[in-house]
Structure formats: C-alpha cells, structure tokens
C-alpha cells in the first residue's frame, strides 16, 4: 500500500478546490451573523502578529517601553475581540443547529478551538509578569492541583507557562482553526431549517 497515493486519492475525493475557495455561496450567507466567524479569524491573525512582535522583544520589554506597552495593548484588545466574536459565532452556530446534515465534527472542532483558546488566554495572563499574573497564578493553582493537573502544568512556573503561551497553545489553536475552516468549506454552510417547519410552529 502506497501511503502517498492513498493520501492523495483521499484528498482528491474529500477536498475540492472549488469548495475551499468558492466564488458563489448560498444567498442566505449574506446575513450578518456569518461575519462573526471571519471576524474571529481576523482577530486571531492579528493576535498572532502582535504576539510574535512581543515574543521577539522579550517578556519584559513591554513593561519598560511605551511602544512595547502599546503593542501589548493591541495584543490585549485582540484577545478581547477574539473571544467576543468567537462567542457570538458559537451562539449563532448553535441557534442555526449548524451541526446538522453531517457537520457534527465541525461543531466539535469549533468547541475545541474555544477551549484551547481559553488555555492560551489563561497562560497569557500568567505570563504578564505583573500583579495580575501573580494573583491569577496563585489563585488558579488550587483548582488545577485539585484535579491532579497542577503536578504537570505548574502555573507558578513562568518558564513553563510562557512556553505554553507562545508556542504550544497558539500552534494548537491555529491547527484547530485550520481544521475547522477545512471542515466548514468541504461540507459547506448548513441549510436553513425548512420553511414549512417555521409555519408549523406558528
């Protein structure tokens, strides 16, 4: 069995380029709620760019430089925007029953994006090297210790948390968001509930 050819055949079968980059979509996709997903991705893109800038300058730079503080502020508001748009996207996807017609995995991967995003933000708060970082770390340790996680994931260890925040978790979030997008595009957006269902409820 040739793994390369079987992977190619599988991709050819499952992933059509015209589905990945379509130039036409169902007319109902013009509703404003469909913008929350792309706004989440835009926030993530800018979050990563500002994070790379902060990482390149080192973890103490933004405390002693006005420019650094501004870049950190951009990073901070990107986090807020990311979660704001992601939660709106999650709620509107729920109200649409977006998992119908074989889209269960798309929903589950989307929820995983949210969960890993929580961890990324949490480790970011801990990596700030200020009072918030100290307090969130000592406050958060008890819950993690109580479930046995604290023994392996020590929130009081700056080096470990910084590594998680700038490498492990961003890579995981990016991979999950990429998979989520791939699933959305290969399956297409879900159809609306039938109109007669709507009439029947009235």
């Amino acid at each position, binding site marked *: 069995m040739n793994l390369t050819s079987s992977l190619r055949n599988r991709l050819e079968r499952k992933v059509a380029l015209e589905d990945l980059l379509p130039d036409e979509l169902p007319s109902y996709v*013009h509703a404003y709620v469909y913008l929350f997903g792309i706004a989440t991705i835009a926030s993530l893109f800018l979050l990563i760019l500002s994070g790379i800038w902060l990482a390149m300058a080192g973890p103490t730079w933004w405390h002693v430089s006005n420019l650094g503080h501004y870049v950190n502020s951009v990073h901070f508001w990107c986090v807020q925007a990311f979660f704001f748009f992601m939660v709106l996207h999650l709620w509107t996807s729920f109200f649409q029953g977006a998992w119908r017609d074989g889209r269960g995995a798309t929903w589950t991967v989307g929820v995983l994006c949210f969960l890993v995003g929580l961890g990324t933000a949490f480790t970011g708060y801990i990596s700030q090297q200020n009072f918030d970082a100290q307090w969130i770390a000592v406050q958060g340790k008890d819950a993690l210790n109580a479930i046995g996680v604290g023994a392996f994931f020590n929130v009081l260890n700056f080096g470990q948390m910084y590594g998680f925040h700038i490498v492990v978790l961003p890579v995981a979030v990016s991979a999950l968001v990429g998979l989520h997008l791939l699933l959305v595009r290969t399956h297409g957006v879900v159809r609306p509930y039938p109109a007669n269902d709507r009439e029947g409820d009235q």
Partner: protein
Amino acid sequence: MSPRQQTYYRGIRMAPYDLVREGLIAILVVLVLVCGLAAWLSSPDEPPLTVQHVATSDPVTFLQTALGELNGTDSISTYGPPYNSGSGSVQSLGPISLQRLAGVRIPIDPARDDVLGPLGMVAAIDPRAGTALATFTAAGASQQAAWETAFGAALGKARMQGQAVVLPNGAYGPVAPMLTALLNLGRAGLLEPAVDHSDRIYSTDNTRSLLFLQASALPALASQDHLVGTQWGMMNETGNYPGQAWLWLYTFWYQVPAYASSPNADVLVMATMGVLTLILLVLPWIPGLNQLPRLLGVYRLIWRDYYREQALSATVPQRPETPAGGQP
C-alpha cells in the same frame, strides 16, 4: 462547486461571494478597532508585588509569614500534592483524589526552601546569622518549638520604631536574629532570588517566592481589587478592564454556597465544568438537546430574508427541503 455541494444546495439560490476580499476587509476592520481601543484604553499593568515591598512596608506580616513557614503552620507546609505529602489542601470527589494520584512532583518544604536555605546563604556573609542558624539547627524539636511559640506570641505585641520591629523581651533563642536576618534579606530584595534559585544559572520558576507571597500579602491586595474567588475575581483583573469575561460560568459556581462552602470546592467546580464541556462537545449527538435550536426558533430571525424570499417564490415548484433537524 463540487457535485456533492451542488446536490446539497439544490433549490437554493446561489449568489456571488468573495471570501478573500471579505477576509482582508475583516482584518482591516479589526485592526482599526484594536488599534483604536489600545490607544484609547491601553491595557492593565499593575506592578508586581515583591517580597522587598512586603518586608519594607509590613515587616510584621513578613515575620509572621516566615515564622509560619519555619514552624510548619502555614498552608503550604501541610498542603499535600503536588508539593508534599500533607493533607491540608487535598481535595477529592467521593473516594477518588486525582490530586493524590498525581503525587508529589514539585517538592516544597517551606521551612527549608524559604527560611533555612536562604539563611544558610546569609551565614556566609553575616556571622551572627550563621551562629543563630547553627544554634537553631542543633537544638531539639521541642526547644525549637518553644522558641517559635514565644516569638509568635511576641509578634502579636510588636510595635514599629522607624523601620525596626520592636518586640517585648522573651525566650526566643536564635529565632529572633534568624528572622531579623531574613527580614533584612527581604528588604534588600534578595529573598526571591535566594528561594527561586536553581542548579542552572537561569531561573524561570517562581513557585517558591509566589507561595511565600500568597501566604497573606497577595490575598490582602487582591481583595482590595475585588479579585478573590467570592468576588467573581477569577474573571476580573486590575483596573477597569473586561478581564477574562469568558470564564463567567466557571466563576459563577464559586458564588453558589453549596460549592463555595465545600472543602472540595475546586474539584466540584472542575467536575461540573467538565461535564458541561463534554455536553457542549458532543451536543450534535445528544437526542433532544440537538433539536433545541429548532424549538427556540431564533433561526427564524437569522434567516428571515431567506424565508421571505422563499415565501415570495412559493408558487415556483421546488425540490423538497432537507428534513428538519437532520442527523449530524
């Protein structure tokens, strides 16, 4: 569009769309938004609390913390895993304690790590502290306890004279010079590096100094800023900033008396959130719950233009729609 999607969308009007343009516009709009917010509202950066600050501004609290660590009455000395084999903060869910199962992986002995160890370093440059330390370590456990008890009682009657802590006379033995030397080390800003030092030249692990600060100084400041658990503190941050608002449900459980008053509060909250998270993950496959959006009917608002369009073209024969609430 692939044949598979053509089949799925049969009967639905397609419209031109430019995903790449939409993505670029979204990046531009969010960029303007976050740059504007950053310029207008900045971001929080409250300076960290240092041992030096505590030793200078509240030396009695510092000495009480150090004495608690020395005599083993502080919360970390008896905490339990992952720091030691105590049981003071061990939580379990029924008979199962994941905390115990994980074991002691970050061994911490506050008396050794935060008091005796740093004093051993001080002894090299301060013979008086070295003598006191030698006297203390040579004494028996009951004698050590007697000195510690006398010093603890005297701390309750301590008064400040300038920067000096004045204690009534008592049989403290070497404990007073030992803890005075530790206080001076803290005031010099050298206690953190002394307790956090490692065999490597670079130390990035602040576990021990943070545990020293959390004994009393950190919670007191956090309470002033409404950051403790019973104040919805887990989702708050210093200043007027939104904090981690996405943790609202997790924080909510700590406001429920049945959870907050339990000795296993953390593990109960984590278990509750674990179950709710699992439900969210597998929602598409849970009968009943996966039909909830259809029953709630918010979709009518989301797709109102589509339904209006459908109603207008109702006279045109169309392919039957996909069954409602199709299986995932």
